[in-house]
């Protein structure tokens, strides 16, 4: 099975790996639907930080924003999937955007270049902070440089497939820990329902403004560029025709259900454990307190290893996925270049230069004195909102075309 994800946080799988006997991940890919695979790319530091900050600072009063964002995510991914399954020319959504107007090519190129830099900025910073804490060296900037160096060495190599599997196991352990804590904390169901239908923005009582947190949640969930990943997983699964519409919708509903459970669990931990103890999430260590208080040293290790797994895998994913998206967008602007390299990004020298840009330049955000990991994560996810209208308008045009 060939990995054809363009924007995915998944990594390049070399053909020689494909021919080997199926490992756990390959078996997982063949037996589960594209929705659950998309969930693995959707969930990241953005969800972890925005949900926990919202819960710890504002209880359940911003819960309606999460509900709205998940409804929007379902709608957007469903429209993209339907476009992929039902357009008569077999175009991908990006090719479709390019057909509307060249502006979309220029926009996607610039937007993805900036967002690739900014996403990696908070992830490299976070991974450095976590690594520094795990080894107790108190050198987060140096640790961030180590992370960049490691990613640089591992990208595109077969060994990374094994490392990525370990990272996903760590992510699964972290998810189970959050679910366990959320159930143990006996969440206030009445307050959750009240917050879900509350439709109000509370006054700023937390460290981060309520509106900023709200916009950040929408950006991390509904505005996330990783929503474009789902069609590539669908293609790998063999869902390519309008007859797959029903199964695709049900699979997506299941995936959104998984998202609800995981985001809710993180939120509950923030609202029921951190808030009553007066802990505001200003650093990663504050977030670790929730697991440490309930599960002791074991919880501490699960948290830091899990968060490192999420961040490291995301840095690799973004550093391979974003250059593909950026070069793809450039091909919409410059069609001759696409023909020159036969549409194969990896052969284009531009791909490598963009990858270096996306991976190396974000290190400036790790220099001591720059905004902290939590503030950076919230800020960058909020910036997602700027690109959302353009993407949504393009989607409206594409999905309403008669032919």
């Amino acid at each position, binding site marked *: 099975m060939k990995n054809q994800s363009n924007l995915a946080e998944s990594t390049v799988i070399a053909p020689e790996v494909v021919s080997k006997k199926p490992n756990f991940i390959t078996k997982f890919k063949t037996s589960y639907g594209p929705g659950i695979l998309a969930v693995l790319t959707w969930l990241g530091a953005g969800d972890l930080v925005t949900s926990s900050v919202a819960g710890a600072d504002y209880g359940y009063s911003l819960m309606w924003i999460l509900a709205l964002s998940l409804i929007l995510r379902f*709608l957007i991914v469903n429209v993209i999937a339907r476009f992929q399954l039902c357009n008569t020319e077999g175009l991908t959504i990006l090719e479709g955007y390019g057909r509307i107007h060249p502006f979309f090519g220029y926009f996607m190129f610039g937007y993805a270049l900036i967002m690739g830099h900014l996403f990696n900025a908070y992830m490299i910073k976070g991974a450095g902070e976590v690594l520094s804490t795990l080894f107790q060296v108190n050198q987060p900037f140096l640790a961030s440089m180590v992370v960049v160096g490691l990613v640089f060495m591992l990208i595109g190599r077969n060994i990374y497939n094994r490392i990525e599997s370990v990272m996903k196991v760590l992510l699964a352990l972290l998810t189970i820990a959050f679910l366990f804590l959320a159930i143990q904390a006996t969440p206030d169901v009445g307050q959750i329902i009240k917050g879900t239908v509350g439709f109000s923005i509370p006054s700023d009582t937390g460290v981060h403004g309520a509106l*900023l947190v709200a916009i950040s949640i929408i950006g991390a969930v509904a505005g996330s560029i990783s929503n474009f990943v789902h069609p590539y997983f669908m293609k790998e699964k063999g869902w390519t025709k309008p007859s797959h519409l029903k199964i695709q919708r049900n699979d997506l509903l299941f995936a959104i259900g998984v998202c609800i459970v995981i985001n809710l669990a993180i939120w509950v931990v923030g609202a029921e454990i951190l808030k009553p103890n007066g802990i505001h999430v200003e650093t990663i260590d504050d977030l670790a307190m929730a697991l440490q208080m309930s599960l002791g040293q074991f919880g501490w290790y699960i948290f830091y290893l899990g968060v490192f797994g999420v961040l490291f895998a995301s840095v690799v994913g973004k550093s391979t996925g974003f250059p593909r998206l950026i070069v793809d967008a450039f091909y919409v602007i410059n069609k001759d270049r696409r023909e020159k390299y036969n549409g194969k990004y990896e052969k284009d020298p531009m791909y490598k230069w963009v990858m270096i840009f996306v991976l190396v330049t974000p290190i400036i955000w790790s220099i001591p004195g720059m905004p902290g990991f939590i503030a950076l994560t919230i800020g960058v996810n909020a910036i997602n*909102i700027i690109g*959302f209208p353009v993407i*949504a308008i393009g989607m*409206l045009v594409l*999905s309403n075309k008669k032919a």
Partner: protein
Amino acid sequence: MGKYRNNWFENIILTLASVLAVWSAVQLATTFFKIMVDYR
């Protein structure tokens, strides 16, 4: 897209979400510049 075009509900939600996103972006920018002015 033929018969697989968006239904009215999807169009309304996508349009509203776009308007909301523009409003949010303006609010964010306004707050940001206000903070910068206060900081000076």
